[in-house]
């Protein structure tokens, strides 16, 4: 006996096996991200005030780059549209259009990851500086005339490293002050000052361990990024090496694109929730 309903729908449920499977899988994914979002809410609600002098109140906001996040949202939504168009093209028996739309989807997927890694790099090279006089600042650091390059962890300093390498002074470019609500952002030049290492009380970049906000931001977005990568690899397989199935079993191939597409929409949907929650609120 062969396994039935691998691509033909079962009459009473109206679904083929893989479609039932992917919906169940997505249900479990909702519980996974649901738990992480719940953790985010709980961590934020009970976050103690004044723990981190960089921000007012208990929870940081405005530390992420909203224009880039918005752009990335648009990229991901575009890919969600093209993956549907790719599936529709197969339904209309137009393989060339399918391949075109898949390529656009893949470009969007890897574009998203590229932009995200730019954002990560931005955070890993963005410094929190606390002076011995108690003032706290954020900005970028220049040591011996050098800025860290892209994903250049070797060029990231903290206070202990500066001391152990006997650096006496560094250049620090301060972030422009944040406008109060209702105020207009003034055109403000980035101010750069030379700071003696002896005046620094604490120096570190924005990493997961900086604050639970960055912790949960990095964990959720990294997990989401892994989902994007996994989805992109599967879609890439179906667009190129796996596409030979279009000749042998077009119906099953179309179903595969549909199922992969459902996963892709889910990944998109997670981002639709993630973007307002971590960037805007």
């Amino acid at each position, binding site marked *: 006996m062969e396994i*039935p309903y691998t691509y033909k729908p*079962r009459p009473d449920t109206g679904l083929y*096996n893989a479609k*039932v*499977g992917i919906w*169940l899988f997505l249900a479990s994914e909702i*519980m*996974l991200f649901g738990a*992480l979002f719940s*953790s985010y809410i709980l961590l934020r609600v009970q976050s103690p005030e004044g723990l981190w002098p960089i921000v007012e109140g208990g929870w940081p906001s405005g530390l992420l780059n909203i224009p880039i996040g918005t752009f990335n949202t648009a990229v991901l939504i575009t890919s969600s549209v093209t993956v549907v168009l790719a599936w529709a093209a197969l339904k209309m028996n137009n393989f060339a259009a399918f391949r075109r739309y898949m390529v656009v989807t893949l470009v969007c997927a890897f574009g998203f990851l590229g932009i995200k890694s730019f954002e990560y790099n931005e955070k890993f090279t963005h410094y929190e500086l606390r002076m011995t006089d108690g003032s706290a600042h954020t900005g970028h650091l220049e040591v011996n005339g050098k800025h860290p390059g892209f994903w250049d962890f070797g060029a990231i300093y903290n206070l202990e490293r500066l001391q152990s390498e006997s650096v006496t002074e560094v250049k620090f470019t301060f972030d422009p002050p944040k406008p109060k609500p209702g105020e207009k952002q003034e055109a403000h030049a980035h101010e750069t000052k030379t700071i003696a290492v002896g005046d620094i009380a604490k120096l570190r970049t924005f990493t997961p361990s900086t604050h639970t906000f960055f912790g949960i931001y990095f964990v959720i977005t990294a997990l989401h990024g892994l989902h994007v990568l996994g989805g992109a690899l599967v879609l890439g397989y179906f667009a190129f090496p796996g596409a030979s199935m279009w000749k042998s079993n077009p119906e099953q191939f179309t179903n595969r694109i549909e199922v992969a597409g459902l996963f892709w929409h889910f990944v998109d949907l997670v981002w639709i929730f993630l973007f307002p929650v971590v960037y805007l609120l």
Partner: protein
Amino acid sequence: MSTATSHSHAPAHGHAVDHHHEPGFWQKYIFSTDHKMIGIQYGLTSLFFLLFGFILVMCMRFQLANPEAPIPVFGKLLELILGDAAKGGSMTADLYNSFGAMHGTIMVFLAIVPLAFGAFGNYVTPLQIGAPDMAFPRLNMASYHLFFWGGVLMIASFFVPGGSAKSGWTSYSPLATVAEFGKPFNGQTMWLIGMVILITSSLLGAVNFITTIIQLRAKGMSWMRLPFFVWAQFVTGFLLLLAFPPLEAAGVLQLSDNLLHTSFFLPNGLVVSGQQLPVSGGGSPLLWQHLFWFLGHPEVYVLILPAMGIVSEVIANNTRKPLWGYRSMVYAAMSIGFLSFIVWAHHMYLTGMGTKVSTFFQTTTMMISIPSVMILTALFVSLWGGSIRFNTPMLFALAFLPMFGIGGLTGLPLGFNASDIYLHDSYYVIGHFHYVVAPGTIFAMFAGIYFWFPKMTGRYMNELLGKIHFWISLIAMNLVFAPMFIQGMRGMSRRMADGGTAYYGADDIALTLNKSITHAAVLLGLGQIPFIINLFMSIKNGRKVENDNPWKATTLDWATPTPPPHGNFAAEPVVFRGPYEYSAPGSKADFLPQDQKS
């Protein structure tokens, strides 16, 4: 196969159905996609882990009865393997803690769940619904391999510097994070990575099971004609699917607490050994407990529902009667599935989460006992007026009923907020959940092994050895777990490496019971030897079955050739009736198989 019961299929005949060429060793035994082989792989692996977990607890029991004395025979071996942690062959407190944590983890996640869900679910479910295999055979193989490597990782964690995880099977933060703080690759990290792998395995398995039951039911197999075992697996599948991901999330968060030094579960100003921990703080230890128990409580029903399913099959078959209240049992199983998601915080009454929250969870906890009692009652009433065959599987199934009953009823004082405050974290809790899992679930697993062994191999297991196994197990289990209630009510804490000798106020009775429990545990261990002999000897030497349906059962798993070939059925089965039509008035035989027209 509508007249399968009157035929006798020699194994040679069964092979004729298999059109595929004979696969090689690796294809057949290791990388098999056949649900029956995967079921057997799960079964043997989880039985190994069951034994492994038992050996861990035997070391702990010896330590409890004879604090700091060197363990005879085995202690030398332990010192050889683990070095200083078992210096002189006796257990250090750290080693006791790590054995305790790993005993819990291994028994729950590597022994019982894979045995109940992976082994029996895989082998029996497709047969009972009349399917040729699982819906996704390769995914099924992947589930097993993930489970296996997750288990290997767990065992390997004993050998990393500092030893395995030692913060209890619940791995409460901040203890789990600070226990080996600063060592990035410690036992806890291994535990978390292992858990994430095991959870992934369970998730893929659950997707596969639910899809199979929804999509691959044979013609005529409507929902209310499903055997109760299949219903139990179906609900279990949903529990695994929806309850495990939050623990996966929690695992990822604790992993980043350990590796990236985030503070998800670490509060402000945490001081360890007189020094403030160099972390940002601002996290919540309670969050870990919420996420853990959101899995933890449905997990209890993951352990018990398949057991109830197996017991139902065995009881219906051996009383020669339809199950009493089949429909109520199905609805009860569904209610359990739903309610089990809203009772988790009854494990957390002592955390200070507030009396209002406690009251809510106390209420839901009392509610969930109702469907459990419904199922148990239905099974008890099913015995009424039956002509019972007391064979080994039936003895285990019958013992399950009062043993699970004791386990369930002793849970009520723990479900009430007021009485739990006294009993929490005492040996009473240990007694309670071991009654549910050991003479409860494990007895049902034994019943299932004795019951389906003839279908898997074509031979019966030995009845005499089986009965010796049963009676020793039953007596020893009670001698082990019943005294724990007394110890617990006398205030003995569950986490003491010396059994409470150093504990001010520990009385003689509690300490004497430690010794008697250990003796009973040794007896329990010896009682498993006949089972192990029986299991392996019967494969070649057991009495041969007379036909494909030796127990004269009604469900479709007995309508296959013995052992079932690749693809299971000789012809596509068609179902005409409900699952338990035994002793129907006016019929010639005392059973009407589901695929028999009249």
